[in-house]
Each structure stands twice: as C-alpha cells, then as structure tokens.
C-alpha cells in the first residue's frame, strides 16, 4: 500500500514545490552578460528538490507516523491561526487571551475560572512587560 505511506505524500508535495520552482526559474535569466542570472541557482535547487522528492516518493519506507495526539496539536494550531487572523479586528489582548483560555479550558480541561485567570494574567503580564517596561509594541 505504497500510496498510503507518509513518505509518498510528503514526496508528492515536495515534488509539486520543486516543479513550481523549476517553472518559475525557467522564466528568469539563467546566464547574463554579467554572469549567472536570477534563475541560475533556483533552477538547480528546484531540480534537486524534484529528484530527491521523486526518490522519497518511490523508495521512502518510513513507518506510518503516530497520529494519535495529532488532533490536539492541530486543534491548537487552528486556535492559534484563528487568533492571528483576528488580531487585526479585535486586538492582541482578546485574540491572545482567547487562545490561552482555549488551551487551558479545552486542551487541558481545567475549570473555566482557572482558564480565565491564566488568560487574564498572561495578557496583563504581556502588557506590563512589553509596552510598559520595554517599550515594545504588541500586535
């Protein structure tokens, strides 16, 4: 069942990246009067990515990764990505506070009061340390 091997899928994704790099690089000068052009180096590493990913897709035999905990990791990533998208609209305090609350209350199943306290304290701590003490702007 080679098609289910993680190496096959990661090899396929990287082959697509390699093909994109080669296609782009072919659109730029390879050699100019002054020497190698902007397409020179990318063309070669693009070809190398294609070759290595093809090899990986065909001969790669890593065992299937253990994805049991992946749901938790991906849910956390989803929360982080959502908060990053929302920073522009609701500000750092609410967006980051929401991620902190989510991690404590949902991922680690602590009582909502504890989660709210952790979220509040971390946000307050960031405001005290960065803009007030160090003069560093928050997102």
């Amino acid at each position, binding site marked *: 069942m080679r098609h289910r091997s993680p190496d096959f899928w990661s090899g396929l994704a990287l082959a697509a990246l390699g093909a994109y790099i080669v296609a782009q690089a072919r659109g730029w000068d390879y050699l100019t009067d002054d020497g*190698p052009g902007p397409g020179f180096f990318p063309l070669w590493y693009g070809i190398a990515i294609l070759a290595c990913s093809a090899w990986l897709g065909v001969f790669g035999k890593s065992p299937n990764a253990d994805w049991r905990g992946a749901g938790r990791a991906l849910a956390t990533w989803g929360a982080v990505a959502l908060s*990053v998208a929302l920073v522009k609209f609701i500000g750092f305090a609410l967006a980051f506070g929401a991620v902190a609350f989510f991690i404590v209350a949902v991922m680690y199943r602590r009582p909502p009061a504890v989660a709210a306290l952790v979220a509040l304290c971390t946000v307050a701590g960031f405001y005290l340390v960065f803009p007030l003490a160090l003069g560093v702007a928050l997102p």
Partner: protein
Amino acid sequence: MDIAAGLLHGFALALQPLNLLWCFVGVLLGTIVGIMPGLGPPATIAMLLPLTALMNPAGAIIMLAGIYYGAKYGGSTTSILLNVPGESASVVTCLDGYAMARKGRAGPALGIAAIASFVAGTVGVLGLMLVAPPLARLALAFSSPEYFALMSLGLAMVVLLAGKSMVKALLAMLVGLWIAGIGTDVFTSQSRFTFGRMELLSGIDFVVVAIGVFALGEVLGNMEAREEPQVLPVPKGLRNLLPTMQDLRDCRFAFAQGSVLGFLVGVLPGAGSTIASFISYGVEKAFSKRREQFGTGVIEGVAAPEGANNSETGGALVPLLTLGIPGSGTTAILLAALVLWGFKPGPLFIAENPGMFWGLVASMYIGNVMLLVLNLPLVPLFAQVLRTPVYVLYPLIIGISFVGVYAGSGSLFDLYLLAGFGLLGYLMRKLDYPSAPLILGLVLGGAMERALRQSLMMSEGHLSILVSRPISAAMLALALAVLFIPLFSRFNTWRLRALEQEES
C-alpha cells in the same frame, strides 16, 4: 592583538556591570530553558532575538551565548530527575543519571553534572580562544569559490548527521535554500517567488521561520500529550549535592576526554552536542574497568556526556565566528543575530571587532562560574521549574512568539507566516524531517548563492573555477564524499545505529 592582551580587553568589557547583568540573565534563562522539556535554546534565542535590537550588541551576544551554553547545564537536571532530556544534548545523561536518582543518588548526579559542565565548558572556551584567531588568519586566503565550497561542506555535514533519512535532511536543506531565495534578487532586482505579495519583496525574515519551526512547532508537538511527567525529589543542602572524593577520582578521565572530544566534535559543522555526548559516553564506556555497569547508575556515565556537550559549545563557536559557518540550528540563529546587529562573522570578524570576540570569550569564562554557582546550591530551586503547569507555559511561549515576530517587523503579515511555519515545524517533526538543515539552508542560502554567482562572474561563467583552486576543490570533494559515503552499507549501518542510539 595577542591572546593575553585580547583576554584582558575582553574581561574589561565583560566585567562592566551591565554586561555582567546580561551574562547573568543569559545563563539564568539558559538554565531554565534547559530544564524545561519542550523549550530549547534555539526557540528561546529566536524569540528573544527581535528584543535584542534595543540592546548594546556586546551585551546582546553575551546574553544569547549565555542562553546557549547555560541550557546545556540545565538539560542534565531534567534528565536526572525526570528521565526526560531537557534538551537533546542531555539524552544520554538519562541512562546513568536517572538510574543514580532512583538509587537515591540524585544529589551526586546533579553535582557531578554541574562540575563536569564547568570543567569542560571552561576547556571549550580555552579552545575557542586558542584556535579561533589562527583559523581566522588562515581563512583570510578564502575567496568566493572557497566560501561556496565551505558552505557546501557545512550543509553536507549537517545533512549527513541531522536525521535518519539523508534524503529528508537534504530536502529540508533545499527548502531552506528556497525560502532564502524568496524576495528581490540583489544582483538584478528581479522579484522571485513572491506570489504577487508586496510583503514578500524584502524576503521572509529568518526570525519568523526560526520561531515558527522551533518554538511554535515544538509547542504543537508537545500538545499531543495531556499527561505531565512526575519529578523525582531533589535532596536539600549543598552537602547532599556534592559528589564524594571517590566519585571525583572516578570521573578524572571523563572530565578530560569529554572536554577534548566535545570541543573537537563542536568544531565540525553538523555534528553538534548530542553527537558529542554520545561519542564521549561511548569512549568512557569502552575504556572503563566497569563497562558492564554502565546504564545502571555509574557516575562517569553522567560526567562524560555532560562534559562533552558543554565543551562542544566553545568548539561550535569557532567556525561560526571565524568562517561565518554555523554548524547547528542554534548557532545559525546566533549568526543571524550577529548579521542583524550589523556584524559580518568571518575571517575579519575578530580583527575588526576585537571587543566583541574577546568580550564574548571572557563572558563565557565568567558565565561558566555563574552556572556552577547556580547549578550546585540552587539546583533544588531550579527543579521547581519542572513543576510549572504546561497549560501556563504553552500560552506564554505562544504569546512571546507573537510579540517576538511582531516586534521585529511591525507587520501582521509576519504573524500569518508564523502560523504557517508553526504548522510546517509540527509536520516536519511528525514526518521525521530534521529542522536543523532547513534553518541552516535558510541562513546560508543567500550567502551561498552570492558566493556561487561571484565565483562564476570571476571565471566568466566557467564552473571549473570551483575545482581548479585547491582548497575549494578539496572541500567540494569532501562534501561529495560526505553525501555519497552512506551509499556504502557498512558506513550507513554505523550512522543509523548512532542515530538510533541517540533517539533511544
């Protein structure tokens, strides 16, 4: 400037109150991140890097280096008390360190780890001080072809030693080169791989990738487990932490060989402190009269790897400062830091910035003394760090990552990239792609392309320039040999066995 004058100049700089404070902050932070499983020095240094823009560069490099070598001290505490390495260099310390702790000898194990780290760390700095200046003078003869060959050799070594699959390591490195190529070509002003986004015209900031892959990727990986590990108790009182005279006598050879081997392995690009600690443990076991007892709580089994992984730090700074070639993810971030502050690590670095180099060397001597003091009497206090709930720690790391990225550029687009690279870092861990080659490819990509194109301009387009100069030819031949040697099954079996041991 000779060594004595340089060192005096360095101590004058490092002993300034503010620099002493930064040194203390660095080694303290290093100890704490070393103790915490799941937060390593590359992630910490990457997160703090944007904030160092507010600091004097000398103070900043003293602090970041303090985090780097301080983490090696802290890592042993977690290995001994938790049987979980605080950082990868302390993996092998788990074998005998945890066994000693279970036998009620956690104190001497922690004590000998601190003493070995101090002895070997100091020898490593001595090596850095003696080897770096002459190597820098030798490297003055290097031109673009030699630099291209040297970077190729450095990347090849990292690919060889970074992971079980060399193809995956090679792919990670090539993707790093691609990310480095995103933006405007400096020679022709052609925009490359920008997907029509204005924000990408100036390229992707190294800090965004480093924080995403190391900090966020690491947090996501650690989020998979809900349970928190149990910590063994730490004996109270300095007397209970000190090893006996017999322990110290047993560790004499471990101190010596760990110091020397660690430094030598550190100088090699790609080998790193994990390999250094394994080699040192292997040598100690091979020459020991009680080799059959290794793994059951032998004190030399703690001293040798802990010494080697600290001495390696001094060695790893040699190619970084004299050639501008980092050998690991952490040194790649230190290289990026130096470039960010306007320095150019390479053969002229020491001559042009004697204060920075000698100040750093002197601060490392001071930092090692600080670490010995911190890690002997105060180790019970540091062990409390392990009781920090992860549900408090992880939101903090995510928040610092946001601020670190935003502080550098003030761009929300970089936060979107951060989320993307965080996912990439997590997937790389899951699919067994090593992250060090990606970071090294990213750091060296721009310089490597520049060196290659300058070489070809010198030769009017003839690739023969790379092999017609003896140093360049030798290094390229070595790089090719490094990449092709694993095709010979006997060597590859040895390489895989070493990496499997490292994982177990």
